[in-house]
């Protein structure tokens, strides 16, 4: 019962803010569905972060990342989160000299991550460190942790070209990459608009069900 209550509380927190992302992906692994094995998925996410931070795709030539265990991933993501102390002024400066742990040795300085991406990787790394820790301890992942992993996989390090954040108090923040704001990209705007409508519908369904439940109890 406590577990269900905890999950409901967590879902309630998640419902406060909705985030709609439109991503342009070139292909490769990020276009593939997430592997069923969470450790395999986390290795790949770590590889994406690693390559992006070093600006050298495929730099893990010895495939050391491919053999990381859940415990090693917990350490790697934890150290990555600690290392990514990006501030709002200059992410690249604060990241200079970071060599991601547990990966190939002799990596060069961080060169290819935008400030927003670095902040995203830091937050996700922190979550993934906890998830990997649970896996290493032999604990089964909760639905919430699966969702976090799924989101980390889907967003990866690809370009988020449009993002809308909708808060429960009615605030809506829309961000768009300036390269995609011309009329020539109207189709992308329409696509994002439809995604926002889907997000609203899903949210309305869940919140509506919760309201019905409470109304039923208070009749």
């Amino acid at each position: 019962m406590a577990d269900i209550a905890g999950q409901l509380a967590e879902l309630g927190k998640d419902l406060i803010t909705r985030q709609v992302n439109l991503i342009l992906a070139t292909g490769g692994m990020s276009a593939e569905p997430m592997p069923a094995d969470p450790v395999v998925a986390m290795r790949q996410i770590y590889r994406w972060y690693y390559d992006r931070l070093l600006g050298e795709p495929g730099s893990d030539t010895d495939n050391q990342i491919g053999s990381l265990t859940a415990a090693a991933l917990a350490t790697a993501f934890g150290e990555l989160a600690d290392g990514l102390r990006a501030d709002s002024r200059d992410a690249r400066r604060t990241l200079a000299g970071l060599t991601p742990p547990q990966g190939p040795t002799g990596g060069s300085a961080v060169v290819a991550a935008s400030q927003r991406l670095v902040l995203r990787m830091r937050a996700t790394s922190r979550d993934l460190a906890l998830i990997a820790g649970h896996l290493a301890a032999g604990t089964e992942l909760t639905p919430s942790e699966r969702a976090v992993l799924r989101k980390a996989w889907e967003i990866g390090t690809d370009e988020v070209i449009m993002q809308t954040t909708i808060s429960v108090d009615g605030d809506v923040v829309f961000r768009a990459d300036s390269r995609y704001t011309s009329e020539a990209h109207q189709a992308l705007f329409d696509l994002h608009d439809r995604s926002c409508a889907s997000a609203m519908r899903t949210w309305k369904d869940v919140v509506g069900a919760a309201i019905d439940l409470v109304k039923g109890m208070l009749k």
Partner: protein
Amino acid sequence: MSPSLLTNTPLAELADTRGWFAVSTPLAAGGTLRSVVYVDGDVTTKLIGARTLSADDTATHFAAIDQQADLVRARLRGFVLALTALWIALAAGLVVVLRDPASVLGALALLVPLGILLVQRALRRTLTVSAPTIAAIGAALTIVAALTFGLDGLLIPASVTLALNLALVVGFAVVRSKLRAILHASNDPKE
């Protein structure tokens, strides 16, 4: 409800994925459009291997998402129906297996709340009773029948059920009156 009871049911599947679903649509000019819709309202849409798409592509993709969302809702409805059927089967099973007055009474106790819920649904807006009220009525009927037939074994569980549900009814009534007071206060014209 134990997790094992839900194994291999649609609800277990939904709980396992926390309600998300993914839809992929191949684009006419090459590439793929993939959306993942999460139960908390987050949506991630990925345009893979393409930089633009047609209005038809977008329409096809979101028609598929709507269809998938309807399927999720249908699965939930199916689960509720399956649970109701299980409830009735349990009541019928009690009568068939035990074949004594106590089992008939137990079956009735199981079915009374269901019956009242059905009546409540049929007479929506004219008869409004909450789940604890229904359970309390069921428990009270069980106590009366147990006393009539001398079925002492049913007295304690039915009494506990009655007491718990009466407490809930009173608790909800207090919450309701507080909420009404707050609502009335907020509706009063300001000086």
